[in-house]
């Protein structure tokens, strides 16, 4: 049994004015695993941490219990200092004697001291079973794969190539550009979409670091951060790629409003994308147009706002006005979604150009008039409380973006999570371009519907995240831990005891557990680089074969036994 040193902090009187530290010292010294126990004036100033480290080094102790303040006060700083001094994280136990004992129970010093001893003795018992996870380091393959050559993917590819990384750009279509190929102009800059793509396409053609795979499909992905193996099937045949990072920029598709507003039955009731196609061909003189927003969006079936439909209608409404100032253009909406300063100015510009806005309620949608061609729209204007008849020769339906069907397949292959609508989930709230699988990043409308401008920004952001990984020569499992200095470790399997039942494989949310043939039987193997130490596998393992070394179940059992006696132990 390795020896434990106990350090009890007075915190300049804050702790020992309530807690009897001397009695705690004596009690702890009676414990057979404690090598020595010491009461100190303070523990957190840098000098004290250095002193603590050298006192542990000079003794035969290998583990240490710190009785001080809470982790978020100075306790965390003490742990960090000891770890920097070379003491393993799993060999350090922190007990909060200040906030959790001395301060909160200051009216009852006796019971506060009792609680303090319970906490210290539990920590001593637990430390016996805590071990450090073995780390594993893999070299990073400094190439990236980007799925989708729309604005997000192109921007990510060009950014990574400019940073000096080789990029494999996979596109299911025959040419790059994605949604930009389908629209005439982009908002809010009103640049031509074709010119916007051209800059990227030129770079894709000229930069030897970018490898473009048109009409390609991903058939398999395995691996982990720094080392993914991908199988791509394209007109050039089957290809195997090895990449360090994956950026998903596979975009989204436009929902078609079959059955709504007599779309498909009345000529001249078209979707926003059909209008874009007409505009690509050239200017079109329109006399009266009615745009209808939230067609198939913000309803019970798709309860979300697709972000880009309001500004797209503003763009095209203004375009009609610009080409024919006498045109009458109406936008029927439920809320105009133009957050921020640029888009709000875009909205004001449309108002200034004479585009008329009519608000309707979800429960009382506009109705189409006409038999073959649309002749007018009847709408209940909820702001002035009157029914209005608008004569028109064009109705444009704004429909939302919906997730691609192959998101499910990609998510399955990579072990990613999809949100309730089918878009790729992010790490909320501060890492919106990262996923729960390290080395896999998301951007553009595959993540959440966005404009092409935002998609380009997200592509750059995802490239920054990928570059950080690709630029490091090697990546270690413990360095991927999300909390610095707090090693949660990863699960490990005792190969001899494992029966290969597969429970762990079924519950692992990170695709880290896999069954592997070993001789005649199958046993579970944990991929340390994918494991996030959630502990699901530990809880379903029938014979305790899977363990988290830092959080061994025996440590918890020992703590319960220490606090409540033998009968409560597991």
């Amino acid at each position, binding site marked *: 049994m390795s020896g434990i040193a106990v350090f009890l902090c007075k915190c300049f009187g804050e702790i020992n004015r309530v807690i009897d530290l001397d009695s705690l010292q004596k009690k702890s010294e009676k414990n057979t695993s404690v090598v020595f126990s010491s009461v100190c004036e*303070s523990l957190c*100033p840098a000098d004290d941490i250095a002193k603590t480290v050298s006192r542990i080094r000079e003794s035969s102790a290998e583990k240490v219990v710190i009785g001080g303040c809470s982790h978020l006060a100075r306790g965390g700083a003490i742990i960090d200092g000891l770890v920097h001094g070379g003491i393993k994280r799993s060999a350090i136990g922190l007990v909060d004697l200040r906030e959790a004992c001395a301060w909160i129970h200051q009216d009852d010093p006796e019971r506060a001291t009792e609680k303090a001893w319970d906490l210290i003795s539990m920590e001593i018992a637990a430390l016996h079973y805590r071990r450090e996870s073995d780390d594993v380091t893999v070299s990073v393959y400094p190439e990236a794969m980007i799925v989708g050559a729309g604005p997000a993917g192109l921007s990510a590819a060009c950014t990574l190539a400019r940073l000096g990384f080789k990029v494999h750009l996979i596109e299911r279509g025959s040419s790059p550009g994605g949604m930009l190929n389908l629209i005439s102009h982009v908002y809010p800059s009103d640049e031509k979409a074709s010119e916007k793509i051209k800059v990227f396409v030129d770079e894709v053609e000229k930069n030897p670091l970018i490898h473009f795979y048109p009409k390609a499909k991903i058939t398999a992905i395995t691996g982990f951060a720094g080392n993914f193996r991908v199988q791509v099937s394209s007109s050039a045949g089957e290809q195997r790629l090895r990449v360090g990072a994956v950026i998903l920029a596979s975009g989204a598709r436009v929902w078609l409003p079959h059955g709504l507003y007599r779309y498909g039955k009345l000529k001249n009731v078209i979707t926003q994308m059909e209008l874009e196609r007409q505009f690509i061909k050239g200017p079109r003189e329109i006399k009266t147009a009615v745009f209808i927003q939230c067609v198939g969006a913000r309803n019970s079936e798709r309860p979300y706002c697709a972000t880009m439909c309001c500004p797209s209608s503003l763009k095209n409404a203004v375009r009609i006005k610009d080409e024919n100032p006498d045109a009458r253009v109406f936008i029927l909406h439920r809320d105009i979604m133009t*957050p921020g300063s*640029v888009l*709000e*100015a875009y909205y004001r510009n449309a108002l200034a150009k004479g585009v008329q806005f009519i608000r309707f309620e979800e429960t009382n949608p506009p109705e189409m008039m006409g038999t073959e061609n649309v002749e007018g729209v009847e709408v209940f204007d909820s702001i002035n409380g009157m029914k209005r008849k608008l004569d028109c020769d064009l109705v444009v339906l704004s429909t939302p973006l919906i997730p691609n069907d192959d998101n499910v397949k990609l998510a399955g292959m990579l072990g990613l999570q999809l949100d309730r609508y089918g878009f790729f989930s992010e790490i*909320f709230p*501060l890492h919106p371009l990262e996923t729960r699988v390290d080395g896999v990043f998301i951007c553009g409308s595959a993540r959440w519907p966005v404009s092409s401008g935002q998609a380009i*920004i997200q592509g750059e952001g995802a490239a920054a995240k990928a570059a950080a990984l690709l630029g490091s020569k090697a990546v270690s499992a413990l360095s991927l831990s999300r909390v610095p200095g707090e090693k949660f470790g990863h699960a490990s399997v005792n190969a001899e005891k494992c029966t290969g039942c597969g429970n762990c494989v079924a519950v692992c949310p990170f695709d880290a557990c896999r069954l592997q043939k070993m001789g005649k039987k199958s046993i579970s193997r944990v991929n340390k680089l994918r494991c996030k130490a959630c502990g699901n596998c530990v809880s379903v393992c029938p014979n305790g074969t899977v363990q988290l070394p830092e959080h061994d179940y025996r440590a918890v059992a020992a703590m319960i036994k220490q606090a409540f006696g033998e009968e409560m132990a597991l």
Partner: protein
Amino acid sequence: MNSTNASPVLIVGGGVAGIGAALDLAYCGHAVHLVEKGRVLGGQVAKLDKLYPTDHCAFCPLWTDIKKLREHPLITVHTSTKVKELKRVDGRLHAVMVRKPPVIDESLCVFCGKCAGECPEAAIAPLGDHVYPPSYLVREDICNRCERCVKACPTGAIDFQRTEETSELMVDDVIWASGFTEVDLTPLPEFGLGKHPDIMTAMEFEEWTAEAGVNKGAIIKKSKPSVPRNIAFIQCAGARDQRLLSYCSAVCCMHALKQAQWAIRRNQEIQCVVFYTDLRTVGRDYYEYSLRDISGSRVRLIRGRPSLIYPLPGKEGIAVKFENTMTQKREIWGFDMVVLNGNIGSSLKKKDQEKHFSLALSDDGFVNPEADAISRFACGFSAEPADVAESVIQASSAAVKAILAKRNK
């Protein structure tokens, strides 16, 4: 990637955008100096009680990233520091920074609270419950300089004699990430701000009702310690208004929905009304978040901009005069509390900047990305009204653009 310690990037602002940009640069091997004028990192997000749309606490994820930032060898953090001058010299930038050291040095403070216990004026309080590392703050407006706290402090962290320190730095580029501040609403008297203690701005309401704040999450009036029967949330207060802020502040609709929802969740007696113009719920899960409120019926959404908010003469409540544009009725309703949402703008102010360096700002006060070396990169509210996710995405993009600009030199 080659390490370029000698030519760091300066980041102005230590909120979520600044932290994000600093981490991205450092992880790509570039040195960073991050300047924050306040004492703590985390910016406005650190002041938020809960984050929409998941209702998570803001502090834990923020703490993780602040810890990464503090531990990264390529990142130097300067708190309580302002950039005073920024000049272009031979394609690089010469920065002059002024640090006003706080009375209590957080690197020495052990958060024992002896200073607060000694202070006869109650001028010393924790820097905030959601602060890492935790420390205390001396409110210099109340402090009478008896210096009893100096003697009480066991680590010598308190010193009233510290003077301003000026330092200089050569940097390759600067990223503006200085976030938002509240814009004074008193030029628009119809909102009644300052006329009644229970008329407050959204950030004041957040602080007043935060679980880790003064009232430990209780929803009570400021005028007297009782539960308000109803709360009015006024959207677009000062925003989308040509007299003050012509833009939409982007975050306020969701912020109000969050506050209203938490108010009714914490107290079964409270009714909330959100007065809005357009309910802008464009992010992931935002629209569903707004539906959750409506279905409860204790949060009513009324489309209309109140024309006048005033304390009821001779009574306790506050009157809100408005036209419900969905029924075309003009009404006056009484409320116990009124929360004003929308009056937020970039911290970068034209008049302040021009004194020391010429930063290109748009009419709305946001950084105009120009080929000028001083205003090329901005993220978060310095660039455009943005929520948390949008701000950190812009930060990553600004970081990578700054790296590319360095490579092209």
